[in-house]
């Protein structure tokens, strides 16, 4: 468990360092995620080490957004009088984006015979 946690933090630290030193638009943890995939590919034994810890953390990933969510409540006033308009835009835009993304994926997968097994 310690080794898995060490690997996760080290990947994030490497990602953070790379992102900042090169001024990349990709955040450190996302680069860390890529590093994690690469490490898992290169060292098969590493996957056994990571499995339980990764699944444990990801199983309750929603929890991790709660502190930021509580912060949002205090900043609702920053929406000002534009609140209802912005709220409506967010709802419609999020629904449209999910729908368009999923439908395009399905259409392209069908057209190219790229079906899931």
């Amino acid at each position, binding site marked *: 468990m310690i080794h898995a946690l060490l690997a996760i933090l080290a990947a994030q630290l490497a990602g*953070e360092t790379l992102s900042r030193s090169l001024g990349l638009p990709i955040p450190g943890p996302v680069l860390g995620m890529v590093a994690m995939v690469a490490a*898992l590919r290169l060292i098969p034994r590493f996957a056994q080490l990571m499995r339980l810890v990764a699944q444990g953390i990801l199983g309750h990933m*929603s929890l991790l957004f709660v502190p*930021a969510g509580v912060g949002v409540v205090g*900043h609702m006033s920053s929406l000002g009088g534009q609140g209802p308009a912005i709220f409506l835009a967010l709802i419609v835009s999020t629904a*449209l984006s999910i729908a*368009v993304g999923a439908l395009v*994926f399905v259409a392209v997968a069908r057209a190219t015979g790229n079906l899931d097994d």
Partner: protein
Amino acid sequence: MTNFAEIWVYLSREPLLWLTATLAAYALGDACYRAAHRAPLVNPVLIAVALLAGLLWLTGTTYKRYFEGAQFVHFLLGPATVCLGYPMYENLPRVRRALLPMGLALLAGSITAVASALGISYALGVHGEALASLSAKSTTAPVAMGIAEKIGGSPTLTAVLVILTGIMGAAMATPLLNLLGVKDWRARGFAVGVAAHGLGTARAIQVNPTAGAFAGVGMGLNAVLTAVLAPYILKFFL
């Protein structure tokens, strides 16, 4: 015997109290979600946030003090993002085979997210800083705040819009995609990751492992694409 007020003064200064409260509120929200047979609108994050916001207001606790405890949970967002590499690794052959559908869905989903948010709010009379802050709302918070800063938005407002988008996306994805008859878990997960970043991904992981892996890929790719696209799309509305 120490009276309650003294104990409260001690506890309210320590991180323990609000860390415990954060976990308890989420556990309660999760229990409601299960009791409602996983109805998507009974969102555990939304319930936990509402409970905690009410509790902070009742006890007159500032967000800064709350965050001294909650920061330990918040910190895990980074490590959790790294952990998304695990389901991605397990699904790597399938991700590789789906490069073409993913690429086009990413482009379509990302442009739709930015353009529709800007178009609708512009039509409703939103201008200036708020408009710029809206453009990156579908990407993961650190990226969104960076983009907003570069194009004249407010990072704080952007963070608010990002979280709201994530909660909405997580709540609406399942009923919306069922309504559209999308059965491919790759498509469902990927679209949610693109439109609703980490919160959508967290939800996808709970629904289906394939959807979770593809959501993680969608979130990562959209962070990069939005950074490139958002400034150009915003220009149409300035």
